[in-house]
């Protein structure tokens, strides 16, 4: 029996969710089961470097902030081990570490799903979000995956202003050594200077997502609004966009300095807005392609 489109899409989404959750502090592996009757079930294996309640909250926050998914807390099971992350990987192996069934056989593993267990105290105990990827310089993926978080960068930008009015903008973005570009022309109003470059960038970002996701869910990126903000020490462009994934709308915001031009800032703000979403999607796609290539 061949998988249906829905099953393929579910697989892509699950892969992305598991990859995101696996990158959280203390999480060694994550498994998501889509149960059509009971709803999604999330199973987490974690080290003891962080209280179970915080791991659980971090998982909920990452799902909400990163992907726009609402999963009830009683659908999240956290299994905590006294072993370190490395020890768990040595013990379980990279494949087994992905499955909680294997973890359950480890003698050192204890079930601590309830919040009333004795937990180590964190320096900042009332944390809302334990960890969320924020850029940086790599090393943001769980060990053993072999994939780095990816982000699109502005590779080339050209603006041609027409003496008679209007402008043409050319945007080229890069993901590692791969580049894609788009061109747009506009009448040249102030709104155009904000919206047209952002829309051009969104078009290129969508192309990257389509190229990377294969048969994955169709992702639509929409420009919602932009504004130029002049402050005594900052000239800023703020952009609001949304991603629509299987009917779910995820609003995202970005900002960039307009010191090198409003049009360029609009593109950079759009990239900032979509960075975390795009990085997760491209990384998941790379992981999926890597697995299938093997």
């Amino acid at each position, binding site marked *: 029996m061949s998988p249906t489109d829905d099953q393929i899409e579910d697989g892509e989404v699950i892969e992305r969710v598991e990859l995101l959750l696996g990158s959280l*502090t203390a999480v060694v592996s994550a498994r998501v089961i889509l149960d059509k009757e009971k709803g999604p079930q999330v199973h987490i294996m974690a080290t003891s470097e962080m209280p179970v309640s*915080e791991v659980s909250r971090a998982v909920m926050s990452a799902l909400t*902030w990163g992907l726009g998914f609402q999963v009830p807390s009683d659908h999240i099971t956290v299994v905590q081990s006294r072993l370190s992350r490395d020890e768990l990987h040595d013990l379980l192996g990279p494949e087994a570490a992905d499955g909680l069934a294997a973890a359950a056989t480890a003698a050192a593993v204890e079930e601590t799903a309830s919040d009333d267990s004795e937990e180590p105290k*964190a*320096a*900042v*105990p*009332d*944390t*809302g*979000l*334990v*960890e*969320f*990827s*924020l*850029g*940086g*310089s*790599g*090393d*943001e993926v769980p060990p053993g995956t072999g994939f780095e978080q990816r982000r699109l960068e502005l590779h080339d930008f050209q603006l041609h202003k027409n003496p008679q009015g209007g402008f043409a903008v050319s945007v080229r973005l890069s993901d590692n050594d791969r580049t894609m570009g788009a061109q747009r022309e506009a009448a040249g109003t102030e709104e155009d200077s904000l919206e047209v470059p952002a829309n051009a960038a969104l078009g290129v970002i969508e192309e990257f997502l389509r190229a990377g996701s294969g048969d994955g869910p169709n992702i639509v990126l929409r420009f*919602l*609004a*932009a*504004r130029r*903000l002049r*402050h005594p*020490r*900052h000239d*800023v462009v*703020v*952009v*609001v966009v949304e991603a629509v994934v299987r009917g779910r709308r995820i*609003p995202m*915001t*970005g*900002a*960039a*300095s307009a*010191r090198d031009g409003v049009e360029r800032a609009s593109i950079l*703000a759009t990239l*900032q*807005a979509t960075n975390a979403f795009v990085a997760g999607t491209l990384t998941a796609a790379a992981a999926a392609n890597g697995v299938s290539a093997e």
Partner: protein
Amino acid sequence: MLDSDESTVVSQPKEVPTGRPQPPPGKDDVPYDGTIRLVGHRVREVQDGLVQVEAQITCEGRMFNGAASGPLGPPDRLRVPALATLRALDACLQIFYLGVSEPKLVLDSVVEVSVGDFPVAVVMITASEKASPTPLVAACPLVGMSDLAIILATLQATTRTVSHWLTWGDRSEEQDRPQ
């Protein structure tokens, strides 16, 4: 008023910390990878009308805390989480920054604006090391008072710059920065 009107955070030059992590193989000329992650935050009302925000970040396996307090009401309320985050970043720079310059992160403003129909908080920071000051900005959707959103926006605005400082110190761009 905020607990301190000093919104400038300056890292002093210092000795190389003992017990620093070893660079990964093949990266002998890169002291640290400079990855910064948010661990958590705490918000509490310390007095009537006064709120305190603590932010905790991790870098190279070490935790760093920053705290700030200020009024519960706008407009300074928005600055409190951003300032706490910058102080956590400063604590990190105090340990891991290896240059001789004094990198500075100045919180210029956190403002609430409407972009279309959407309320958005914009965090504006000036970063300076030894070159000319660099404006850093980020934005986050503002639904009620979201300390976490502002903390995330502050980190989003600064992490690439701070990571670069931690990785490359104040060595000249032309000589040392990867292309």
